[in-house]
């Protein structure tokens, strides 16, 4: 974090506890003390950079090519929007119909700036009934639609391909109820993940998933993509934490599976079909989710490891010795640290090593957790599995260390164009793919970085170049998918298929 000197005005005594300079160049001043009203403390200072406007504008060179042009796809036989249609929508959603092309640019372009649609109309419903009416109408008039949440998806699945009508859930952000004893949260699909966490935090609860995009992503989208994230290894996948859904189907029928029961074995569990269906079977409008208790004590260790085999040994020891308090196990290779140093001016908290693992523990008793963590660290350090590291116990340090891992996606964008891959592989062959890929593209790519949820066997392999380079893409695909397929891995562990990977599903299924 860079500390900057602020001019001090005469006659005022100000307390600066932290000046945090976030990635997009604005200064957030946080002031904290018992005696003052808790002014806006930005818990995650980088959250705002995942909002499409802020980052794309700061790096804007020109708009990406229209998807229909770059990727050679044919428009289906859907109707085109007419002024009568617009009038009907205006009547249904007064003031919440947007047709201004300038405003639509953000909604038409995905966060990675690799896909741009050509939608002419954006609708912003507030209730399930409004969505149902929209779908009934569109179904009757053969109009294609594109449901959109936070637009943080990484496979081009959150933006139109042609001129589909965008249905944004952003205004559906009401929290309906929270049951403090069972930990059940019921809310609308447009609630932003971080906002839900803040609300739950006052009640001693937390959301069962966490991802870098939490400042912008919406729970409906998370569910439709079966988002994984940083804490899947502790709290499980959304297939387990979602208790109920309310979904609007393509013809406008509202399917009410919004149960808050933890156990209900009466008939087919229909909601499971919608989790991860990426909006192809229906639009999620309301969600009921089981939230775990917020842990009392969180510790974060970042450890330097000299080779990948030791990363796996550390994982084994962590699972054994930290067991029930282990809440996240991430890995990064050294190009990742070079990346955040170069593009975001973050500092490495430990010495430069070939690999880094981030281990987070979360539990209800600080003393017990620290004892377990200390025993674990003594062992891995003593046996040479780990060669360097640091442990953070206070929140500021925990957040700066997490920032290194969570902001990798943002840092990659600064290079220009990102070829992003999300692969599930057996741990034994995990890093071999990275080595092979690096060898293959090193001469024409800016960099190749690998990081991911090592605890879940999920690799995020990213290659960058200054601008979109078709030659580089040809070198990467289908080589990467064939490699993955050979080891029975998944070509999309958690990001989904979206637009980018819809033709490659056969490599894994």
């Amino acid at each position, binding site marked *: *974090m860079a500390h900057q000197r602020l001019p*001090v005005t*005469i006659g005022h005594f100000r307390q600066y506890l932290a000046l945090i300079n976030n990635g997009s160049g604005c200064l957030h001043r946080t002031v904290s003390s018992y005696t003052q009203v808790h002014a806006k403390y930005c818990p995650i200072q980088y959250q705002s950079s995942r909002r499409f406007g802020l980052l794309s504008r700061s790096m804007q060179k020109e708009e990406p090519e229209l998807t229909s042009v770059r990727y050679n796809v044919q428009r289906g036989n859907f109707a085109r929007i007419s002024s009568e249609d617009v009038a009907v929508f205006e009547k249904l959603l007064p003031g919440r119909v947007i047709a201004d092309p300038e405003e639509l640019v953000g909604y038409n372009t995905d966060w990675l700036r690799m896909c741009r649609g050509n939608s002419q109309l954006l609708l912003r419903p507030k209730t399930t009934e409004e969505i149902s009416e929209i779908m009934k109408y569109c179904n009757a008039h053969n109009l294609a639609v594109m449901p959109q949440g936070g637009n943080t998806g990484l496979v081009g699945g959150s933006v139109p391909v042609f001129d589909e009508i965008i249905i944004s859930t952003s205004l559906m952000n009401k929290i309906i109820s929270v049951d403090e004893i069972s930990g059940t949260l019921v809310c609308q699909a447009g609630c932003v993940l971080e906002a839900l966490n803040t609300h739950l935090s006052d009640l001693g609860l937390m959301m069962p998933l966490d991802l870098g995009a939490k400042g912008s992503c919406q729970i409906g989208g998370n569910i439709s993509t079966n988002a994984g994230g940083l804490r899947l290894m502790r709290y499980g996948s959304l297939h387990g934490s979602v208790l109920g859904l309310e979904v609007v189907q393509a013809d406008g029928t509202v399917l009410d599976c919004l149960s808050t029961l933890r156990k209900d074995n009466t008939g087919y569990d229909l909601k499971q079909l919608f989790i991860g269906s990426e909006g192809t079977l229906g639009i999620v409008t309301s969600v009921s989710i089981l939230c775990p208790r917020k842990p*009392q004590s969180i510790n974060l*260790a970042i450890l330097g490891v000299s080779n990948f085999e030791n990363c796996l040994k550390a994982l084994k020891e962590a699972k054994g010795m930290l067991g029930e308090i282990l809440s996240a196990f991430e890995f990064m290779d050294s190009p990742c640290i070079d990346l955040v140093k170069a593009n975001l001016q973050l500092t490495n908290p430990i010495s430069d090593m070939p690999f880094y693992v981030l281990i987070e523990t979360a539990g209800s008793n600080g003393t017990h957790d620290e004892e377990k963590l200390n025993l674990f660290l003594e062992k891995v350090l003593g046996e040479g599995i780990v060669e360097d590291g640091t442990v953070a*116990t*206070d929140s500021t340090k925990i957040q700066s260390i997490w920032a290194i891992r969570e902001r990798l996606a943002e840092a990659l964008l600064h290079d220009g164009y990102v070829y992003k891959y999300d692969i599930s592989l057996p741990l034994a062959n995990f890093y071999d793919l990275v080595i092979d890929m690096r060898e293959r593209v090193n001469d024409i790519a800016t960099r190749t970085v690998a990081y991911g949820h090592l605890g879940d066997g999920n690799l995020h392999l990213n290659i960058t170049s200054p601008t979109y380079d078709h030659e580089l893409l040809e070198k990467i695909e289908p080589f990467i998918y064939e490699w993955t397929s050979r080891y029975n891995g998944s070509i999309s562990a958690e990001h989904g298929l979206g637009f980018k990977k819809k033709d490659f599903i056969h490599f894994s299924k």
Partner: protein
Amino acid sequence: MKVLVGVKRVVDYAVKIRIKADKSAVETASVKMSMNPFCEIAVEEAVRMKEKKIADEVIAVSIGPKQAQETIRTALAMGADRGVHITTDARTDQEVQPLAVAKVLAALVEQEQPGMVVLGKQAIDDDSNQTGQMLAGLLDWPQATFANEVTVADDKASVQVVREIDGGLQTLSAPLPAVVTADLRLNQPRYATLPNIMKAKKKKIAKHKAADFGVDLASTVEVVSVEDPPVRQAGQK
């Protein structure tokens, strides 16, 4: 020369503060506690002095309950050589007053004879900003508070301190020994490396009671009530 650093265990900076239902104090049960951020900066400055061979020993001292040992251990992991723990069960956020703390530190200074005492400018729980100044008064030492930059002279007989004041930056020079209090921009505290964290476990922490130094920690101030500030009203349109 020896450098004495005071470290205080306070509610973690990022935690949302809650008041106890009886309005007697801030809720600290099961709340995350950490080293006061300004104390961390003080420790960092002392350790840097040791690295530059200006200081040869850094002693970290804390007044507090049993858990204050963790705060001292953090200072040891950052590079302090040994610790002193003055045990008390009184609330360090409101019962233990700056004057009492200053008296204890003064007694410790008499015993240890450090060349400099480095403290944080204030604790984020009581925001008193008094301990350093009172300590200097009790010892009849010069004080350089709100330090933005500290440069010890080559002969270690004086120190030049750049202070952050309302009008800008003030540079003053003081003969050593002196009391220096750290402000935010003095330095960026380091992450304690794992090997140092392990080594810190073996460093010594001496336990004492305030009475051993002839100081009574009993409060001379009675806290009548602790309340939340009024909820902010919306502005006028």
